[in-house]
């Protein structure tokens, strides 16, 4: 792998770490498997790109993208809590609906931003080449968001949110409306995911209606990898793990794409299969291993 490819993987690792933090918030903290992210990531990108191409400010476009993502998360939470639709199904419904919404927002399947102003533009041409600048910018954003998330999860509200995922009966008995905490958690999560989408669109110079496919699987892979690498003993550890997991995941993908097996070379279109296998292994191996160990202990 070339240095250039390595930096590219690092950039992606940090860019999608924002999304993975969102997935951590729903999947692990709230115990709510939320597939909305496959739709809210391109939603953030679509809103941001559309705003920019119609002459809007790139920073404002990101704020709008985040708000749109938060609304999407809130809709899923509404379906699950108020209408009592199974959480997984509720999130799939929002995800599917978002596909149409994203096409409506953009008015076409993709938007190019190559000639448009982005949040990265003012930083370019100041001595740092882009393949070093971009990973640094994303790392800085991840750091800020990660610290904010850590802080939030230790506030009064944050404790209530964590308890909602851990033990809803207990937190209800302590006077907390779990409908509210679930809505808050999903809004925050999908806000982060949309932020990730908006920044990715601006850095790669395009928003595409299909860019969200496999988001949840990549997010899960990052969360699980992080737990394997760093553990999840505390919120701080878990957050560091998620970011690290995301970076390691993108590096692993880049490595997989750079090797050839005789005539066979993996292409980016194989990524979802590889990732799915990775997640299956990560989720399945611990159970399998303890089974094997037990069998060996018996023998």
């Amino acid at each position, binding site marked *: 792998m070339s240095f250039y490819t390595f930096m590219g993987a690092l950039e992606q690792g940090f860019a999608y770490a924002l999304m993975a933090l969102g997935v951590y918030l729903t999947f692990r903290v709230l115990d709510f498997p939320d597939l909305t992210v496959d739709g809210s990531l391109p939603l953030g990108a679509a809103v941001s790109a559309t705003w920019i191409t119609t002459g809007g400010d790139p920073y404002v476009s990101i704020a709008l993208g985040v708000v749109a993502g938060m609304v999407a998360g809130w809709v899923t939470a509404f379906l699950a809590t108020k209408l009592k639709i199974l959480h997984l199904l509720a999130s799939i419904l929002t995800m599917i609906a978002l596909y149409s919404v994203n096409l409506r927002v953009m008015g076409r399947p993709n938007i190019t931003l190559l000639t448009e102003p982005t949040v990265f533009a003012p930083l370019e041409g100041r001595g740092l080449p882009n393949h070093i600048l971009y990973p640094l910018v994303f790392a800085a954003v991840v750091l800020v968001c990660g610290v904010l998330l850590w802080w939030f999860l230790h*506030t009064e509200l944050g404790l209530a949110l964590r308890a909602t995922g851990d033990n809803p009966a207990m937190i209800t008995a*302590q006077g907390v409306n779990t409908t509210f905490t679930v809505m808050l958690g999903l809004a925050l999560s999908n806000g982060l995911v949309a932020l990730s989408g908006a920044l990715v669109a601006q850095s790669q110079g395009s928003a595409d209606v299909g860019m969200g496919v496999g988001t949840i699987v990549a997010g899960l892979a990052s969360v699980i990898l992080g737990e394997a690498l760093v553990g999840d003993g505390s919120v701080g550890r878990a957050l560091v793990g998620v970011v690290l997991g995301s970076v390691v995941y993108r590096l692993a993908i880049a490595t997989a794409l750079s090797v050839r097996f005789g005539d066979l070379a993996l292409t980016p279109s194989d990524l979802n299969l590889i990732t799915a296998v990775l997640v299956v292994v990560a989720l399945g191996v611990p159970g399998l291993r303890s089974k094997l160990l037990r069998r060996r202990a018996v023998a």
Partner: protein
Amino acid sequence: MIQVEGLIKIFHRGSVNENVALSGVDLHVADGDFVTLIGSNGAGKSTLLNAVAGAFPVDAGAIRIDGRDVTRLPEHVRARDIGRVFQDPLKGTAASMTIEENLAIAARRGLRRGLARGVRGGDREEFRALLATLGLGLENRLRDPVGLLSGGQRQSITLLMATIRRPKILLLDEHTAALDPKTAHLVMDLTDRLVERDRLTTLMVTHNMEQALRHGNRTIMMHRGRIILDVSGEERRGLTVKDLLDKFHEVRTDDEGLSDRMLLA
């Protein structure tokens, strides 16, 4: 403090599984009363406590707490006035969160939760002092996840959580039943101490007749969704476990007589 009037709760209403869990319960509990609640399995004891706590809507009747009609209020709103401990020691605490975080959540019961620090510097001293009263050594383990603790330790913490902000009523549903006898004894001691300290109006379900007579100042027996015995004062002091058992058998035999009669008819 608690006024329950004509309370009816029917599960699976209108289906073949229709089940009348409460069939017209009237109960007035005065401020500072400690009521023990006994009755055979399925008598409706848990359903009565859950109805007061607001776990589900009732089919008829009214519930007032401290004069306020709460019949239509959701569970989390009523929780402002209610401390609860469940039978399952795992149900009252969040396992993945630390002891101090669990206590901090309870310390904000009924208050607005915002973006202030969840566990504040001053909290820790208070928590440490409270935990020290348990005599379980937990005062030095504030940052341990609750999931590492035993059932008895978790139940003790749940009791502290239920009472850390003085509740208007305390609801205990067989909260020592899942513990070994020694731990159950410790938790029951703690219960008495906390109830006395704050003069808490308490409703405690137990299947242990001796416990029902030894603790509290009033005992109620339920059967088939009704209150069939309600004793306090002099009358209660003279009561023995045997009297309670006799009463049990009496209603059982009545039931059998009833079904015999139905068979004959």
